Structures are given as structure tokens and as C-alpha cells.
């Protein structure tokens, strides 16, 4: 059977949380295919990084609710995908106490980024486009 796709983690048998994570990795992966690639193209092809001052983010990018929502969705997808992906890597190379400690540090970092990332995109005062 071709349950083994040669690169990805084999689909966990027996359901439960591990299977849900396996599906979520693929779902968030598909979302990132669109969101992350288009974000990268916007911040390199449409506008050069040298133009992207804090003021530009506030008065141009984030004067639009669409782009705030887009960025927050990108944030949610990438945090889940990246942190659950690195979780697989940590579990592959560690065991016992080191594994628990690293996973704990990983989850804590993820939670901190979730909080500060959400805070900045949701609370930066809106400056209507001139």
C-alpha cells in the first residue's frame, strides 16, 4: 500500500490526536502554499524590503482590514505548521527528559509568538489610507 509517501510522516493509524495533527499539517501546508508564497512575493517583488518601515506597515499595509486578516491567518497557519513540524523533528531525535524539556520550550515559544503576533496585528491603531 502507498500509505508511505516517501517524505512525509506516514499517516498515523488508530486515529486520535496524532491523526488530527497529520491532517492539520496537510491542511495548513496547503493554506501556506498560497499565503506564504504570496506574502513572500509581495514583500520582495511588489515592494522592496528597503521600503517596509514601521510607518509603511501601519499607514499602507495595515490600513486595510483585508491585509490584517490575511496576515493573521498566515500567522495562525504558519505557527501551527512550523511548530508541529519541529515537534516531529524533536521527537525523532530525542527521548526521555531532554525530549520533554525541548517540547515544553517549543510549545512555550509558540504560545508567546501567538500572543505577540496577534497583539500587534490586532491592536496597532488604524490609520485610514490617505
Amino acid at each position, binding site marked *: 500500500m502507498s500509505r508511505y509517501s516517501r*517524505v512525509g510522516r506516514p499517516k498515523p493509524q488508530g486515529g486520535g490526536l496524532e491523526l488530527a495533527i497529520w491532517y492539520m499539517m496537510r491542511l495548513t501546508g496547503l493554506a501556506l502554499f498560497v499565503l*506564504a508564497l504570496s506574502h513572500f512575493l509581495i514583500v520582495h517583488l511588489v515592494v522592496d*524590503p528597503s521600503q517596509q518601515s514601521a*510607518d509603511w506597515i501601519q499607514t499602507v499595509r495595515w490600513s486595510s482590514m483585508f491585509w490584517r486578516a490575511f496576515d493573521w491567518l498566515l500567522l495562525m497557519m504558519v505557527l501551527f505548521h*512550523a511548530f508541529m513540524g*519541529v515537534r516531529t523533528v524533536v521527537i525523532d531525535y530525542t527521548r526521555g527528559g531532554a525530549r520533554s524539556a525541548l517540547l515544553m520550550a517549543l510549545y512555550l515559544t509558540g504560545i508567546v509568538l501567538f500572543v*505577540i503576533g496577534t497583539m500587534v496585528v490586532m491592536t*496597532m491603531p488604524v490609520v485610514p489610507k490617505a
Partner: protein
Amino acid sequence: MINGYRIGEGMLAWLFHRISGVAIWAFVVLHVFDIYLAGSNPGLYNDLLGFYASPFGRILETLLGAGLLYHALNGARIIIMDFWPVMTRYNRIMWYICWVIFVAVGLPVAYVILKPIWGA
């Protein structure tokens, strides 16, 4: 051959996927923090932006973009095979297609990112 092991394409695809995934993860940790600074400490954020726009920064961004593009294409290949098992037969062809797209899309984008270095 590495250390006497024959390295198959499947293993290379896996290794690149893992390395690129962890590298992008590391960038995202930095990046969410720097965008947070754009709100809480714009001066410091703008200083950091100087690095993004510098020649060395641009080289790193090109590598990041390459990693992201490879990971996205190969990730799509994995997803296709996971949900559409008959496609596993075309595993190798899809891997080559990934590299064709990688070069076709990657080179022009790399050119645009890097060209300010030589003032174009």
C-alpha cells in the same frame, strides 16, 4: 555516495524538506518578533530593516525564499501522494517537476531580490 551509503532521491527529498522546514521555522521565530517590534518599538524595527535591505541580508533572504519554494513544492508533492495514492507511481516525475518549477520561478525572483546589490 555519502559515507558509503547510496543516497536515493527519496532520501534527499526528505532531507531537504526537513532542513528547509526547520530553517524557515527559525526565521519565523525571528520574524514574528520583528513585526511585533514594528508596533512596540518602531525605531528598533527600522534599524533591523536596514539589515533586511543590506547586501548580506538580501543573500539570506534569497536562501530563505529558495528553502520556502522547495519546501512548498515538495510539500505539495507529498500531499498529492497522501490523498491520491495512485500518484505515488509518478513520484519521481513529480520530484523532477518540482525542480523545473523551482528553477523557472526561483531564478527570476532571486534576480529581483539581489539586483539592488549591484545597483540595478
